[in-house]
């Protein structure tokens, strides 16, 4: 045996990484003179202790599911899409245009068109770097980063000069019409007699995100195009030999990636702020990279990692709200989690793997001895 068992790879290693990250976080909290146990308790109760906390945790998680899926689908084709941020910004613009200018009778229709609008704009924004990569060999990491800045400037121009209601100081669009407002979990669950916090922003988009996870799974692991994407990611030359077109796969993977990032905007723009604001994505595109890394680029892993980051966001917010812990410390905790699960993964993985292999070898030797005897 030269590998550790699967359960250790997908469960034990992340668990150990997280434990280490939290242990160091608690040490930092203790070092600034706060009670680390109270802080952890507050984070957990604040994020998971009430339907209100869950409502925020799941809201953040919805954003991260979309961007995490976006990063992982491109990563399966060995393309590092850093442009989730810009693609989500453009997706927000697409969602806003659809919601503002098409009169919808009901949200069920509106959400379909908004998804389409968001995905289309996001995909278009990914299409240019994808084309440059496929045809010209301009590295997608560089171009997608640049496109994040162009997206921010474009959105700023559109909001300040075109969509902003006259007289308003806030660079934001007008409110979307009532018929496009998505039902929150409170609205969805109250007919069944389940009380869910009224002020929590989690909405029907979360369900869309879960469905997206399943669809991405089927696409990647149960379809021909998914197989082509994955084999292209594993070995470019082998897949070219097998008749897979690099241009086609690069374009398809990046368009899917951009589309998913753009679809995130049904959650934050259509579901939460109900108007297009300048800062609506606020880094979810970048968090998506960490989520995809932690989720091992698998849709199910992305789902779990997104929940974890949703928890960190909401729990961290509660910390800043109720303890005199500066908000920068919340970033420290998030940074430590990313550091341990992403960058320092091998620090834990290698010794644990060795331990498993040694244990397996010892067991083998024992078996052999028993047989001899």
């Amino acid at each position, binding site marked *: 045996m030269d590998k550790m068992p699967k359960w250790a790879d997908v469960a034990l290693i992340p668990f150990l990484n997280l434990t280490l990250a939290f242990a160091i976080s608690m040490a930092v909290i203790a070092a600034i003179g706060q009670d680390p146990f109270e802080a952890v308790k507050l984070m957990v109760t604040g994020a998971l202790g009430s339907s209100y906390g869950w409502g*925020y945790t799941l*809201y*953040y998680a919805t954003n991260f599911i979309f961007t995490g899926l976006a990063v992982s689908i491109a990563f399966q084709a060995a393309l590092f899409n850093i442009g989730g941020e810009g693609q989500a910004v453009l997706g927000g613009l697409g969602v806003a245009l659809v919601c503002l200018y098409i009169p919808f009778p009901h949200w069920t229709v509106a959400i379909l068109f908004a998804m389409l609008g968001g995905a289309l704009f996001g995909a278009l924004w990914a299409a240019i770097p994808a084309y440059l990569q496929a045809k010209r060999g301009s590295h997608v990491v560089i171009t997608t980063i640049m496109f994040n*800045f162009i997206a*921010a*400037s474009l*959105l*700023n*121009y559109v909001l*300040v000069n075109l969509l*902003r*209601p*006259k*007289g*308003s*100081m*806030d*660079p*934001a669009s007008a*409110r979307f019409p009532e018929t496009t407002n998505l039902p929150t979990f409170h609205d969805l669950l109250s007919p069944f007699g389940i009380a869910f916090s009224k*002020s929590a*922003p989690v909405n029907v988009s979360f369900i869309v995100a879960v469905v997206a996870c399943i669809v991405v799974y089927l696409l990647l692991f149960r379809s021909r195009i998914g197989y082509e994407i994955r084999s292209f990611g594993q070995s470019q030359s082998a897949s070219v030999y097998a008749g897979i077109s690099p241009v086609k796969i690069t374009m398809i993977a990046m368009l899917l990636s951009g589309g998913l990032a753009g679809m995130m905007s049904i959650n*934050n723009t259509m579901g*939460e*702020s109900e*108007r297009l*604001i*300048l*800062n*609506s994505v*606020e880094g979810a595109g970048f968090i998506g990279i960490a989520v995809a890394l932690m989720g091992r680029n698998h849709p199910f892993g992305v789902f779990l990692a997104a929940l974890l980051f949703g928890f960190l*966001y909401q729990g*961290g*917010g509660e910390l*800043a*709200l109720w303890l005199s812990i*500066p*908000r920068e410390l*919340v970033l420290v905790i998030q940074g430590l989690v990313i550091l341990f699960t992403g960058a320092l993964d091998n620090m834990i993985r290698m010794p644990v793997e060795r331990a498993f292999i040694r244990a397996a070898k010892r067991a083998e030797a024992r078996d052999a001895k028993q047989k001899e005897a």
Partner: protein
Amino acid sequence: MTLMKNLLGAAAAVAVTAGAALADPAVIFDLGGKFDKSFNEAAYNGAKRWADETGGKYLEIELQSEAQREQALRRFAEAGASPIVTTGFAMADPVANVSADYPDTKFVNIDGFLPEIPSNVQMIAFEEHQGSYLVGVLAAMASKSGTVGFIGGMDVPLIRHFACGYAQGALATNPGIKIVANMTGNTPTAWNDPVRGGELAKAQIAQGADVVYAAAGGTGIGVLQATADADGVLSIGVDSNQNHLHPGKVLTSMLKRVDVAVYEAMKAGGDLETGIQVRLGLAEEGVGYALDDNNASLVSGDMEAAAEDAKAKIIAGDIDVVAYYTNDSCPVLDF
């Protein structure tokens, strides 16, 4: 003494409780953070002054994400806080949304705009264009090259509003003056990018500007530094008095008394007048220019007289400084 203070405090508390439920005020700082050396910090100073003077307590939070805007408002409203003071134009819409659910809570927003102000909300706006006009007058008089610069933070209407007032003041003083205006960026990081602020300042100096006005939050620190390092160039600070940062190199500062606004709102407590738009301009001492020992040698008697003259005329209505918001454009400056 302490006993007396406690007794008085208790008496005051009872008096307040009689009127409404025991209410501590709350302050919500915008995404820039409490210690941004500028706008939010001014709000913090106002709150601190109130707490020091009255011995009262207040709740506070620094926002970290957009979704927390309503969350923080609801949390504080449910905790019984009133008035809830919010800073930044981005809070206006969430305040309008949440205030309807908490009719007994009073809300204050600084810098925002609402077409219809709910009955329990007070909106505070500063007439930044008037204060900027005055520093524009001073800049034009101090400039020897006939070129003055403006460096804004993020390219949003509010900052164009600053630039527009400044340009009008400078042009009124010297009709032939050249104005170089730059914005730092299009994302919120533009509020806190001193390196780029310094580069922009150097670029403007290279174009001949010898007075540079920075309305850019933390980015302005870099502008002030770069102009202080250059020979014969002066800068103008913003929001709080920044003259002391580089004595003798900062011509003046455009004051925006956010601290006073926050202090007054917290002091008024339950008696805060709501449902109205409060405008703090030159007449209300809400905006102005800073004159102290650090810049006494830079501002001559003539310059001070000219600024005071313009101030009196603006207050009297003889000079009409056009606000950028009126037509969403500036008559003398293109962006």
